[in-house]
């Protein structure tokens, strides 16, 4: 499995990472090595095997529909890089 720079480009865009040309080239190589290593999984016949996403095997326990105390307004925005009028501020989102 060899990843091209274009593949890295595509995945980086999905992951919202902005990579320099040099990083892309290096990462294409590193990721290819990892995928090469991972390709050993292709050797095994896994058709009849169930995939496992949770190890504990237990079922979900539920929460009662009872309100808790929400955060005080000053705490909500305390870590915000940019805020205004009790809201988080971000660069304009174009719509329409």
């Amino acid at each position: 499995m060899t990843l091209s720079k274009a593949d890295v480009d595509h995945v980086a865009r999905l992951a919202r990472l902005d990579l320099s040309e040099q990083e892309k080239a290096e990462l294409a190589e590193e990721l290819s090595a990892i995928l090469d290593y991972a390709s050993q999984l292709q050797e095994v016949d896994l058709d009849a095997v169930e995939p496992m996403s949770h190890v504990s095997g237990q079922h979900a326990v539920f929460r009662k529909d009872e309100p808790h105390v929400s955060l005080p307004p000053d705490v909500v925005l305390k870590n915000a890089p940019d805020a205004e009028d009790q809201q988080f501020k971000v660069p304009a989102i174009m719509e329409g």
Partner: protein
Amino acid sequence: MLDFSQGIRKLHEALRAGTTTPERLLNESFERIEHADGEINAFLRVNDLVSRDRLTTKAAIADAFSPKHLLDGIPYALKDNMCYEGIETTCASKILEGYIPPYTATVAQKLDDAGAILVGKANMDEFAMGSSTENSSYFPTKNPWHKEYVPGGSSGGSAAAVAAGMVPYALGSDTGGSIRQPSAFCGVVGLKPTYGRVSRYGLVAFASSFDQIGPITNSVEDAAIVLQAIAGADTHDATSAHIDVPDFSAKLTGDIRGLKVGVAPEFFADAMDEGVRQRVEEAVKVLKELGAEIQPISLPHTNYAIATYYLLAPAEASSNLARFDGVRYGYRSQNAQNLLDMYSKTRSEGFGREVKRRILIGTYALSSGYYDAYYKRAQKMRTLIRQDFEQAFSQVDVIVSPTTPTPAFLLGEKTKDPVTMYMTDMCTIPVNLAGLPAISVPCGLSQGLPVGLQIIGKMFDEQTILQVADAYEKAVDFAAVRTAHRKEAK
């Protein structure tokens, strides 16, 4: 002079007898940090004011201190991926620099409730991704045994802090070996509980179906005491197990006669260090002498564990780390022209190389067209690896192996080659894939560096691995080796 390595119970007794006080213990911790951490760099932050404030509050409640709990009044360190309200938590990442959590992790809350005193936040590989603590965005931590060596990772700061006597114990987190591997490298005890035994609420997620918090301590008994304090179901964590918490110290009798101990050849790789092989074989002999039955077992899919893990864990991580986008907290790039730019620049400037690498691998494994070939296949292999263990545990009570194939490596030795670095976790990763509990106890030295013996147990059977580890520890007296080394170092 007090020595934290004498164990939590001794410290507790001293507190009860009034021969020491929480303040003196805390001062001892600060002094050790002051003395040694300039070189070792185990701590990202020491919370001098917060800890003292907590002491003052405690003192105000009772004029004469009388501990209510084994951990009452005893200092500890928290890996920097666990939240404590009001105390900066960065996961050793630039992207969380300055982040002050608005809440406290369940484990820290439980320790608070027991009266424990938080000394500081320990260094780690950024977002727990790494095996050497060299991936910290702030500075690497050094191995207290030999300062040109890594302490292991990702809980390298926690392990080094305990090994260097700066705190009696610390909490780490283990996704693929991040408690056991640094514990082995630093010659201390590290316990990864069964997935679900300890609440993950407040642990900044790396790979949610693997992550588990556990203690790093000087002794097996200390590990049992700390686990006792942090274990149990949590209403804030739907994956925490609703299973009774037994008395983890109950079986620490030194008696393991009749227990069946499995040894799997798959854990003894060709490339493994000869000293490590010898120490582990000697350890198996000790267990036999103690009356355990040694039984060969097979875990045939172990060779696929690393590949499986390095698809699944990054996949989960790519999603878990997507929230670091510069909107609500943490770093935001000031060079952005628009929203898309803000996301990409913030994340590129905020994350380190290894984190980016794993986000990319994980994103790729989940992306359209590759999901079945990578992610789903790996999930299926996870099933087989789990079944291997189930099969083995129908024959034996515990499985022993080296914790790592080699002792600590040199700083900088493996940073250039991710796959080689990943190999250092070959013995620990299968355990996380299966969700099982495992402990690493020191079992001697190879080339002057500590070697770890890993003892793996059945689901929710921490009691038996603690029992075996404790019996072994009592039989070999590694503490003497440690003391000798420290004298030599001084």
